[in-house]
Structure formats: structure tokens, C-alpha cells
């Protein structure tokens, strides 16, 4: 029996785009144990939100993650609108869901490219990212920026969609659907790519349910759960769409689910553009002070369901913002799915949940409570405490 070697991967490693540490126990080439250790990308964003009014929180929550920025603002707006008891005009809901689906398109295409790169299939990576530019240009034209769209505001959206932009978007869909069909063919037929993803990172269905996994990672193990259908929000009740699941339970299944979801999102974008209602796109009179109370809001981000919990205390600033990003739910299951496969499969198995560690590491550190008792610390002091601590303990001068 080969003795067990302990192989630490991360927090800095070529295949990890963001800092996260995984400890693997390997015997020869086979992995027998896996543990994860996150928290390296923790920026105290929620603490920051408590010192900003609701509108400013939007732009902080948008920067939790570069790829799914719209999901966080959508979930936060829904939670705040529940607290305010606001009624969003239908056109606003449609435009918000339009950008949601466009973001799912470019996020899944991005993942397909990154997964191909993890297994050394760089041509597919380059080609997929070339065609992703179609969606990125569309988003840039609509919202004014490729990444942080700042498209959501409390009560609706900030910009309207002109007729000319609408037709341009419709034209963009045709080549995108055709190219995605071509990539589906490549993904399921290229033998060297198949050899690396078929039968790797297995996660049986019952285990997926127990570990409360979410998003395409769970749907590829046969778990029929999608927040867009279970908890209809935004404009999803008005759209008909299919929830894609399959029983592959391995990375091949996750590639299939995500590629088919791209096609499904294209259909939804087409539906939304054709039946875009007229009228207002943002609620007229929005109060800046949010009444006291707590609200939970669910949103189906590209990686899974994203939960925002906002507690208001009647002032302009939220009392507590808790964000649970989808990657947090999938990480433990991803570690477990690696056990049994080879060392060479670690990158693709971890990448198969489309990890976004910047989303996962933002739990708050210190609560600021100006009204009810001693003031503890502000974000500024927390920042200097960090700088000071590293200077004393690690001798690092920022």
C-alpha cells in the first residue's frame, strides 16, 4: 500500500484563478482524502454595506464577483423591495431578467472555456471566449460596462432598452445559438476532451441532495431543483422554460447541463425581447428609509441559487446583510467528488463547480451599531487594524 503523501494545492496555484487552499492526501496517483480551506479572499464587504445606504450597497455587492455581479444586485434589490413592499413595473422586471439571462449566457460560456483550458484544450478555450464577445458587447451596449453592469436599482432598472438596441440583440442571438450548437458537438465528440471529463468527479444523486448542492452542479447529478421555477422571482413567472437535468453525475454531465442551459437562456432572451411590455421601467417614488424587518430573497445565479438576507432597521443603512453565494454550497461536495480520481483530475474536478471564491469569502467581521450601545469599529478602523496586524505579525508593509 503506497504511503499517503499530503499534497497542498493553493492558495496560489496556476489552475486556481482565486485564492483557496485544498489539502489532498494522495497514494501514488490516486486521491484518498480532500479538505478545503477558504477565506483568503475575504474583504469584509458585508461590513462595508452596513456603513452605506441601500443605494450605495448596490455598487459594493455588485463587486462581490466579477462574473455574476448582476445576480447579487438582483437578489439584494428583491430583498429590499420586499422590505419596502414595492411593486416593480413589468417592463422593469423584464429588463432585469433580460440582463440576468445575458449574464448566465456569458458566465456559462466563460466556464466552458475555463474547463477546456483546465484540461489543456486551449483551442476550445480561445474559440469559446471569442464567441462570448457577442454577449459581452451586447451587455456593454445595454448597460454601459462589460463587467459591472450597474443595471439594477431598488425599484427596477436604471436604463431603458431602445428599439434599435432590441433589434440588434435579436440579431445577435442567431449566430450565438449556431455557435453553441457547434460547441455542444465538440464537447460531446472530441475523444481527448471526453477522456478527461467522462467518469471523473462522480457525485451520486443521493449524496448531491444530502450535501445541499445547488445549480448546474446539482442538476447534473439528477437533482431537479431550480430557483427560477421553485421560487419564481423577477419576470420568470411570465416565461416558459425547461429545467435541464441529466443523470450523468460526472463532469461530462455538467458540461452538457451548462451547454443546454445556454440554449435555454437564448430561447428565454428571445421570448423576453419579443414580448417586452411597454411602460415605466422603474418604480416612481422609492423611499430612502427602509422599514424595520428581515427579508430573504432567492435568485438562480449561473452557479446556483444565491441567497441574500437583509435586515432593515428603519434607517437609510441596512442593519445586517448576509450573502450566501452558490459556490459555498458546492465546495464541500466538490472536494468529496475528487476523492477516487487522479491527481491530474483535481483542476477539472474543482473547476467543474465553476467556483467563485470571491463570492464565497465575504462574511462580515464586525457589526457597527451606532444607535444601540458602544460603537465597536468602522470599516476604516477594520482596514487599518488589518494593515497594522500584518505589519506587526508578518512584517509586511502595505
Amino acid at each position: 500500500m503506497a504511503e499517503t503523501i499530503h499534497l497542498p494545492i493553493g492558495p496560489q496555484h496556476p489552475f486556481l484563478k482565486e485564492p483557496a487552499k485544498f489539502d489532498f492526501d494522495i497514494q501514488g496517483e490516486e486521491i484518498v482524502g480532500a479538505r478545503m480551506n477558504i477565506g483568503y479572499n475575504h474583504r469584509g464587504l458585508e461590513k462595508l454595506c452596513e456603513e452605506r445606504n441601500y443605494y450605495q450597497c448596490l455598487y459594493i455587492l455588485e463587486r462581490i464577483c466579477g462574473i455574476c455581479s448582476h445576480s447579487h444586485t438582483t437578489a439584494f434589490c428583491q430583498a429590499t423591495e420586499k422590505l419596502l413592499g414595492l411593486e416593480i413595473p413589468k417592463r422593469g422586471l423584464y429588463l432585469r431578467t433580460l440582463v440576468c439571462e445575458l449574464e448566465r449566457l456569458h458566465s456559462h460560456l466563460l466556464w466552458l472555456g475555463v474547463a477546456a483550458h483546465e484540461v489543456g484544450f486551449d483551442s476550445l478555450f480561445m474559440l469559446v471566449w471569442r464567441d462570448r464577445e457577442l454577449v459581452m458587447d451586447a451587455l456593454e451596449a445595454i448597460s454601459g460596462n462589460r463587467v459591472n453592469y450597474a443595471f439594477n436599482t431598488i425599484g427596477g432598472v436604471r436604463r431603458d432598452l431602445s428599439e434599435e438596441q432590441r433589434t440588434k440583440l435579436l440579431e445577435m442571438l442567431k449566430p450565438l445559438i449556431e455557435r453553441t450548437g457547434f460547441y455542444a458537438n465538440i464537447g460531446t465528440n472530441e475523444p481527448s476532451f471526453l477522456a478527461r471529463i467522462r467518469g471523473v468527479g462522480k457525485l451520486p444523486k443521493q449524496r448531491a441532495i444530502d450535501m445541499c448542492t445547488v445549480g448546474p452542479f446539482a442538476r447534473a447529478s439528477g437533482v431537479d431543483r431550480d430557483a427560477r421555477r421553485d421560487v419564481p422571482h423577477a419576470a420568470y413567472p411570465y416565461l416558459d422554460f425547461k429545467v435541464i437535468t441529466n443523470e450523468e453525475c460526472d463532469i461530462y454531465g455538467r458540461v452538457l447541463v451548462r451547454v443546454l442551459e445556454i440554449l435555454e437562456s437564448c430561447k428565454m432572451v428571445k421570448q423576453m425581447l419579443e414580448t417586452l411590455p411597454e411602460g415605466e421601467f422603474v418604480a416612481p417614488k422609492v423611499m430612502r428609509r427602509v422599514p424595520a424587518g428581515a427579508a430573504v430573497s432567492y435568485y438562480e445565479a449561473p452557479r446556483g441559487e444565491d441567497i441574500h438576507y437583509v435586515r432593515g432597521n428603519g434607517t437609510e443603512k441596512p442593519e445586517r446583510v448576509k450573502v450566501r453565494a452558490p459556490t459555498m454550497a458546492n465546495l464541500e461536495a466538490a472536494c468529496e467528488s475528487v476523492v477516487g480520481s487522479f491527481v491530474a483530475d483535481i483542476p477539472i474536478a474543482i473547476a467543474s463547480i465553476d467556483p467563485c471564491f470571491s463570492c464565497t469569502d465575504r462574511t462580515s467581521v464586525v457589526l457597527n451599531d451606532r444607535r444601540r450601545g458602544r460603537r465597536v469599529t468602522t470599516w476604516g478602523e477594520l482596514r487599518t487594524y488589518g494593515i497594522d496586524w500584518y505589519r506587526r505579525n508578518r512584517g509586511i508593509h502595505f
Partner: protein
Amino acid sequence: MVARDWQGELTALFPAGDLTRGSDGFFWVKVDKDRLRDAVAGLKGLGITNLSTIIAEDMREHYLLSYPFLGAAVVTLLVKIDRDRPEVPTLAGTVAGAIVYEREIRDVMGITPVGHPDLRRQVLPEDWPAGVFPLRKDVTMPAPTVAPQGGDK
């Protein structure tokens, strides 16, 4: 799927006083600490098994843990923990996904999940001082000595 109104099943499971329903159709259920496990087992019977996260808050008089479950219906269990005995029975047996979130609440709030299989540091760095639980209101941070840098603001 959501058309089926879960009001009937849930009132059967929980005493009427604890069950409230938000304007958006989400259910909020106050649950006592010791009855948490069988409340979760009851929900599992109804097919609601996906525990999304565990939210820990310090409400000054007591701690509040909310367990949002997403399934056919959205049910959030609210558990009050009194300040002097910060423990809660672990759900690791019935819901494997809870392991990660219970570690997190132990790190930031100091509520130890009794019977948790593998209590490691989840969120905070290894060399974080043991007794300091950052999310609590009475936590004290040593005053910073370095002035903030960057620009002249």
C-alpha cells in the same frame, strides 16, 4: 410546483402560534432549540431538504439563528439561543450540507454545534485569537495605530 399551497401541511407540523407567512409567501417558523432536529426531520418528510445557509445574528438579548430551507416551499426556522449557553444541536446527521455552515457560525458567533463531526476553522485565519468572535456586539478590537493611507481623504 408552487401552486400547491403548503399552508395545510406546515400547520399540521408546527403549532399555529410559531408559523407566520411573509408577504412573498415564504414561511417563518419559530422553533425551540431542542426541537430543531425533529423539525428538520419533519421538513425532510415533506421533501424540503435543501438547507441554503445558517444566518447567525446577535440581537443583544439573545442570539438568533435562521435556517432557510428551499424546496417546494421556502421555510425558515428561527432558533433563539440565550447568551449564556451558546450551543445548538448539530444537523450533520440529517442534513450533510449543514456541516460547512455550522463551522462558520462557530467561527464568527461562537455558537458551538454540539456533536459536530469535524470542527475546523472555516472562515477565519488559523491564527485568529481563540476567544474573539467577530460577529458578536460586545467584541473589542485593539485600537488601530496606523493612519489610513491612500489619497488625502
